[in-house]
């Protein structure tokens, strides 16, 4: 049974079969036939104000739901504008399908209007990409794209479709299966390795669980929690893994790494067994490699064989999907645990961990005299959201303070650009997350730098009635760069001052919603409550201490046990 359909309609039919309900996009010349077909199609199209933000919004949609996010752009500049969003999705393994238009097949290579080699440009920006010049290949390619994006280690897939394919007609027969003989996905884990891993976990005296974004991606939080409780190990969650073990869980020891907590880093330095789950030993976590966990053996579970022993040799590698592997490890743990006795080393280890936590807690009383301290802002957001809001962060100091100080009881609540660190990510990601979660409180925390990269999307928020609360932590600087210039470049502040921030009342007002500036700590709680309870979008500009720095800090290339805990104390002079 087949029927004659246009390529544009075939594409939309395939999207419907993949369960797509939303496309974030921006139309253009060669996608005209596609947009014409969308005119009376039930799939919702969210018109953003820049293609980069379509890719970020598709990520926000995906990161908050686990479903594949879809974005769409025209040829040439439309496609090149997507690239940052695609690389960002690649670095954080986020399933996104990007659809781009291409000039008519016979014009390719002729420097046609708005022609760019999208297939070539996005080769390294995607997990896989396609150029479709033949309408008969289109259905197969679309279903392959979704399968590749979502399975194995997820990632972005781009499908570049020529205008004549959209316009052409073909007899469409629904695809029922796809065949990618070279695409290997290892899910189950090696039974023998799983057993040995469980033994090692129970033998270790100072185990640490190091949980990352892979737990989020495989929806393995419940299985992680069970493992944590069976091994009773202190657990750190990476920037990408925050929320996989709820922030209030007694075994949770915050985030490790460059701006991780003292206890997390001291734990990672002194452990004798790292149980690495869906992580990639990022340089922001390990610091100087030869000083990272020098006494530890490593169990590394990951779905991507190329991650195993990439940075740190794994003593016991397991290649598999955490959702499949963790229950098997847990089953062996339950079987072996009665024989393991009461593990006296572990008690001493916990005592030590608690001492470290008490010595340098992340959450400290913050002065409420004078300026609003950025830490106070994050603590107030934490107090009001109670670990339940979706918080989308931009990149910089505010991202680190938010990661340190805001609780997340569940995965998929903390959404940030971890690997690529793309400024401008926060607001469009929140837009996408709010589209996917219309009834949930979605907050975009931005710096005054990143916010100004995405300002146009305020229009999209208003257009689509998306009640995102945009909180700008405004210190008048590109704060993280300023911090490094202060600490490592003799405080020679070069091109980091951001003068002229638009008045938020007028700015938000111009777009049709409310905005406000707060400068005094005493106003902050009320201002946040007002913003959170407003039915529409809200722009809250929070003026904070301009020169506050993020601590603890492991300087780049430093050892994780040699953290800088705070600013140098003033020395009394005689």
């Amino acid at each position, binding site marked *: 049974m087949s029927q004659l359909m246009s390529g544009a309609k075939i594409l939309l039919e*395939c999207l419907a*079969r*993949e*369960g797509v309900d939303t496309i974030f996009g921006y139309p253009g010349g060669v996608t005209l036939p596609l947009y014409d077909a969308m005119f009376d199609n039930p799939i919702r199209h969210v018109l953003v104000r820049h293609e980069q933000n379509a890719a970020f919004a598709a990520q926000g949609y995906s990161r908050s739901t686990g479903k594949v996010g879809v974005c769409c752009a025209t040829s040439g500049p439309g496609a090149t504008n997507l690239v940052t969003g695609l690389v960002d999705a690649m670095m954080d393994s986020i399933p996104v399908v990007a659809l781009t238009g291409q000039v008519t097949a016979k014009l390719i290579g002729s420097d046609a209007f708005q022609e760019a080699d999208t*297939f*070539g440009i996005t*080769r*390294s920006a995607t*997990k*896989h*990409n396609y*150029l479709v010049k033949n309408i008969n290949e289109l*259905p197969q390619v679309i*279903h*392959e794209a*979704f*399968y*590749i994006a*979502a*399975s194995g280690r997820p990632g972005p897939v781009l499908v570049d479709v020529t205008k004549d394919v959209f316009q052409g007609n073909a007899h469409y027969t*629904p*695809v*029922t*299966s*796809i*065949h*990618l*003989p*070279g*695409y*290997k*996905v290892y899910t189950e884990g090696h039974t023998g390795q799983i057993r040995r891993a469980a033994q090692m976990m129970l033998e270790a005296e100072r185990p640490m669980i190091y949980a990352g974004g892979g737990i989020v991606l495989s929806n393995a939080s419940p299985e992680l929690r069970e493992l944590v409780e069976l091994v009773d190990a202190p657990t750190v969650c990476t920037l990408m893994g925050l929320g996989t073990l709820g922030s209030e869980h007694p075994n949770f020891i915050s985030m490790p790494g460059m701006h991780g907590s003292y206890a997390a880093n001291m734990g990672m330095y002194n452990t004798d067994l790292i149980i690495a789950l869906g992580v990639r030993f990022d340089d922001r976590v390990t610091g100087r490699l030869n000083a990272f966990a020098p006494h530890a053996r490593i169990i590394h579970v990951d779905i*991507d*064989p*190329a991650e195993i*022993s*990439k940075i740190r040799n794994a003593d016991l590698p397991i290649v598999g999907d955490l*959702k*499949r592997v963790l229950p098997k490890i847990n089953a062996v743990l339950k079987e072996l645990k009665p024989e393991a006795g009461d593990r006296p080393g572990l008690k001493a280890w916990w005592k030590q961990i608690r001492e470290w936590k008490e010595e340098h807690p992340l959450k400290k009383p913050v002065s409420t005299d004078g300026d609003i301290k950025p830490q106070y802002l994050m603590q107030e957001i934490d107090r009001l959201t109670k670990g339940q809001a979706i918080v989308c962060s931009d990149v910089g100091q505010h991202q680190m303070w938010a990661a340190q100080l805001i609780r997340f009881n569940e995965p998929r609540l903390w959404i940030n650009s971890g690997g690529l660190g793309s400024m401008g990510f926060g607001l469009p990601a929140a837009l996408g997350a709010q589209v996917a979660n219309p009834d949930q409180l979605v907050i975009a925390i931005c710096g005054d730098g990143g916010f100004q990269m995405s300002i146009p999307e305020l229009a999209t928020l208003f257009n689509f009635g998306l009640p995102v609360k945009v909180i700008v932590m405004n210190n008048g600087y590109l704060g993280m760069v300023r911090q490094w210039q202060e600490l490592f470049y003799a405080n020679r502040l070069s091109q980091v001052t951001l003068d002229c921030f638009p008045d938020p009342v007028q700015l938000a007002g111009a777009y049709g919603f409310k905005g406000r500036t707060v400068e005094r700590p005493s106003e902050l709680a009320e201002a946040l409550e007002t913003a959170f309870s407003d039915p529409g979008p809200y722009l809250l500009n929070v003026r904070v201490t301009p020169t506050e720095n993020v601590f603890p800090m492991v300087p780049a290339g430093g050892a994780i046990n040699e953290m800088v805990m705070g600013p140098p104390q003033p020395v009394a002079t005689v």
Partner: protein
Amino acid sequence: MLQVITLLVENKTGALMRVTGLLTARGYNIDSLTVARTLDPELSRMTIAVAIEPHQRRQLIKHMNKLINVLQATDLTDAPAVIRELVLMRVRAPQESRTGILKEAEIFGARVVDSTVEGFALEATGDIEKLDEFIDIMRSYGEIEVTRGGAVAVSLESKKLRLSPPVPRGSEEAKSEEKNGVI
């Protein structure tokens, strides 16, 4: 030292670019690359000779294996394998050196594929170092022009080719399998 990697890839647009892209992204210059169809016209066999730092090699081959279009990437550097190259060469040969050239060619098992008053066109195959020597010797006779074919290799041990089976997709049945976490 040169390493030799052999890949079985789908004979599709972009497959070559994906493989070489992994090398260029890491700043490696490819010494030689050959690619041609296999018995199955839907597949191609690729042989790459490249100098990679040893600690990066394993990682790189894992990345090659991750490419959707790559069915198998194998490191032949330290594995039992036959590695050969073809050389075509034009040698200027005046009367007095013709006999000498032919003798050397015979020693190296090269064939004369064309002969003119000016000289010979020679064809030689062999392992890469042997051909280097042959080229050096021929150069001693005067001006030569050489085209090297690049290393081609075949592994001497059969490695099991693991291929993924078709997966249901695009239908209700596929959706329910997805929900159950099959993929």
